[in-house]
C-alpha cells in the first residue's frame, strides 16, 4: 500500500493501542495524561496512560519544545573558567494528541527561535519532533481558533491528524514526515471511503457550530492599523485596572515566549539557565538605574496585547494568538481577550 500525501485512511479505535505501542518502540512519546483533574502532556510508556477525554491541556505543549527550565551550558568557577556545552537532545520524539491550535502555536514560535540567531535548544527538539494531532470534536466555551480562519479539525500544522468519527479515527497525512510514520505501521490502516470523509466533514461542521464566541476581526491588517491609532486611548487603562499582574496568562499561553537568563552556582561550578518569564511583572523591564519603561499595569497589559496583535504581525505577518482560550479560562479577574479585541472596533483614537 503506497502512501501518498493527503491520502486519507481510517484506524479502528481498537487498533489505537497497537499503533501507539509501535510508535513507543521508536519514539519518545508525549501524550495527554490526567493528573488531579487536569491534563498534561507527559512521556508515556504504555498507551493505557493516555486520556483522550479532554478539551485541552492545562500547560500548553510548547513546554516540550521551549522547556520551562533549560540549562544553556555549564561552567566552572574560579580563576580558570571552563565552559561545558550541554549535549544536544537528538532523541526522536512524538507528541500524540496535540490539538490543531497548539500545533499552530509551534509554527508561530518558529519565527522567534529561528531568524538571524538560531536557537539550538528549540530547533533541535523541533527538528526531531513529530506531531500527531487530534481534532476537536467538542470545542470549549472559550475556544476561538475559527476567528483566525482556522479550524478545530485542521491538519495544517501537524504531520498526521486523527479525527474521531465514531468507531474509528479518520487519518490525514499532511507531509513527508507523517507519511513515513504511517508507512512504517501501514498494516493497521485501511484507505478511507467517501462515507468516512463525509463523517469527518460532519465532525468539522459540528465543531464549527459549537464555537459561538468570536473575536471579531476583519483581517490582520485592519486590526493592526486600528491598534496603531488607539495606542494612547484610555481604553487600556480601564482594562488594566482589573489586572492583578499574576502572570498566569503568560505561562499558559502557547505563543508566549518571554524568558529570563540566570546563572546558578555553587562555589566551584555553575550553570547558565533559561527560564520562562512574564512581561506582566514590573521587574521584567526594570533597569539597574531604577528607570522602568513600563512602570504601570496599564503599560504592561497594553504591551502584551500589542505584542500579540500588533507587533508580532508587523514583524512576522501573523497574529501571535491561536484562539485556545487558556488565558480566558484562567484569568482570576475575567479579563477576556475576545471581549477586549472585539471592543477595540468601537474605541475612538
Amino acid at each position: 500500500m503506497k502512501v501518498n500525501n493527503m491520502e486519507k485512511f481510517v484506524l479502528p479505535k481498537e487498533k489505537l493501542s497497537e499503533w501507539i505501542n509501535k510508535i513507543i518502540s521508536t519514539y519518545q512519546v508525549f501524550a495527554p495524561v490526567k493528573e488531579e483533574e487536569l491534563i498534561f502532556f507527559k512521556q508515556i510508556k504504555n498507551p493505557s496512560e493516555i486520556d483522550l477525554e479532554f478539551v485541552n491541556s492545562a500547560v500548553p505543549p510548547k513546554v516540550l519544545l521551549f522547556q520551562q527550565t533549560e540549562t544553556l551550558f555549564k561552567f566552572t568557577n574560579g580563576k580558570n573558567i571552563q565552559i561545558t556545552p550541554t549535549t544536544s537532545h537528538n532523541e526522536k520524539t512524538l507528541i500524540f494528541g496535540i490539538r490543531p491550535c497548539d500545533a499552530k502555536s509551534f509554527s508561530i514560535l518558529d519565527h522567534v527561535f529561528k531568524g538571524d540567531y538560531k536557537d539550538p535548544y528549540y530547533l533541535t527538539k523541533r527538528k526531531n519532533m513529530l506531531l500527531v494531532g487530534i481534532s476537536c470534536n467538542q470545542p470549549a466555551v472559550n475556544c476561538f481558533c475559527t476567528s483566525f480562519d482556522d479550524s478545530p479539525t485542521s491538519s495544517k500544522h501537524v504531520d498526521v491528524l486523527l479525527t474521531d468519527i465514531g468507531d474509528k479515527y479518520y487519518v490525514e497525512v499532511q507531509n513527508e514526515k507523517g507519511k513515513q510514520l504511517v508507512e512504517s505501521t501501514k498494516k493497521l490502516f485501511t484507505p478511507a471511503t467517501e462515507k468516512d470523509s463525509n463523517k469527518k466533514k460532519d465532525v468539522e461542521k459540528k465543531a464549527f457550530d459549537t464555537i459561538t464566541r468570536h473575536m471579531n476581526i476583519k483581517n490582520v491588517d485592519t486590526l493592526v492599523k486600528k491598534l496603531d491609532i488607539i495606542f494612547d486611548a484610555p481604553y487600556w487603562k480601564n482594562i488594566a485596572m482589573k489586572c492583578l499582574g499574576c502572570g498566569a496568562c503568560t505561562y499558559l499561553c502557547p505563543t508566549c515566549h518571554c524568558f529570563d537568563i540566570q546563572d546558578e552556582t555553587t562555589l566551584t561550578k555553575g550553570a547558565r539557565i533559561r527560564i520562562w518569564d512574564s512581561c506582566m511583572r514590573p521587574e521584567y523591564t526594570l533597569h539597574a538605574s531604577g528607570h522602568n519603561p513600563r512602570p504601570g499595569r496599564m503599560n504592561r497589559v497594553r504591551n502584551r496585547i500589542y505584542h500579540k496583535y500588533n507587533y508580532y504581525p508587523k514583524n512576522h505577518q501573523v497574529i501571535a494568538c491561536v484562539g485556545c482560550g487558556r488565558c480566558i479560562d484562567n484569568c482570576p479577574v475575567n479579563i477576556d481577550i475576545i471581549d477586549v479585541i472585539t471592543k477595540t472596533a468601537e474605541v475612538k483614537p
Partner: protein
Amino acid sequence: MVNEKQLKTEAKKLVARDDVKYVIGYEKGTYGFQVTPCFAFTPEDTERFIFSPLCVHNLAVYFMLEEKPPLRKGEKEDTRKIGVVVKGCDARAVVQILQEKGLKRENIVIIGVPCTGIIDPKKINAKFPHQVKTVDVKEEGNNFVFNINGKTHNIPKEELLFEKCKQCEYPTPVISDILLGEPIKGSKKEEYKEIKTLEKKALQEKWKFWSKEFERCIRCYACRNACPLCYCKECIVDQLSPQWIQRSVNLSENTVWNIIRAYHLAGRCSGCGECERACPMNIPLTKLNKKIEKDIKELFEYIAGLNPEEKPLLAMFKPNDTEETIL
C-alpha cells in the same frame, strides 16, 4: 442575599462624593458564571454593580495594587478615598492590612455585604460546563436557582458552596462604613477536619502528598498576586542579592517557594482562598494556610484580621507566650 438596588444606591452616593476617587465592586462577566471586578469612577458606572453568590473575588487586593505615578511639577497628591465592596472574608483581609499599617483607615471607605455563601467556580463549572451565555443565580431557601437555556435548575447550596463558606465564622464584615443589610451570624466553628486527617499521616506520606502537588507548580506566582496580603515591594522570590529561591522550576525550589509564602502569611492569612482559586494547577494551597492558622490558634489563641487596633501577631509578644524568650 443583599439587596442589589440598595447596593447601587449606596455606591452611587459614594462615588458622587468629592472626596472619593472610585469605588470597586462587581459586575457581570463575559461568559457563563463569570463575574468581574468593576471600577466605578462616575455615578453612571455604578449602574453595572451586582452582588450574587457568584461574586467570588476578594476586592481588597486592589488597595495594595494602587499605583501612584510620580507627581508632575505643581501637581498635588490625590488623597481621595477608595471605596470597596467587601464580604466577610474580604473585610478580614482589609483589617489585617490596617493592622500592619499598609493602609490608612481614612483613605478607604468600606461597603460591607453580609455574605450568605459563595459558589465555588470549579464546582459550578463541573456541573454546567461550556456555558457561553452569562447566567444569573438566585437564592431560594437552601437552594441556588439557575436559569440555563430556558430550563430552571434547583441545586442544594451544600453541593456548590466553597468549603470555606460552609465553615465561615465571620460572614458579616467585621469592619465597614456602610453595612448593606442585617448582620448574619457565623455557622459552626472551624473544625479543621481535613487538616487533622492530614496531620495524622506519617511523615513520608505527608511528604509524598505535598511533593505530588508541588511537582505541578509552574511558579507563575498567580497565588502571590491574587493574595491581598502579599504586597511586599520586592518579593523574596525576586531578590537577587542574595538570592533566596532559585528561579529553576523543580520540586526543591517549588517546595521552598510555597512553604515560604505560607510562612509569610502566618498569623495574617484571612482564609479567603483566592490563592487556590487563582492557581492554574489546582494545588490545594489553602490546606497549607489552614494548617498554620490552626497552629497559631492553638499556640497563641490568635485569629487574624478581626480588630484593626490589634497589633499583628508576629510583631508583638505577650508575657504568657509559650516560648521563654522572644527569640
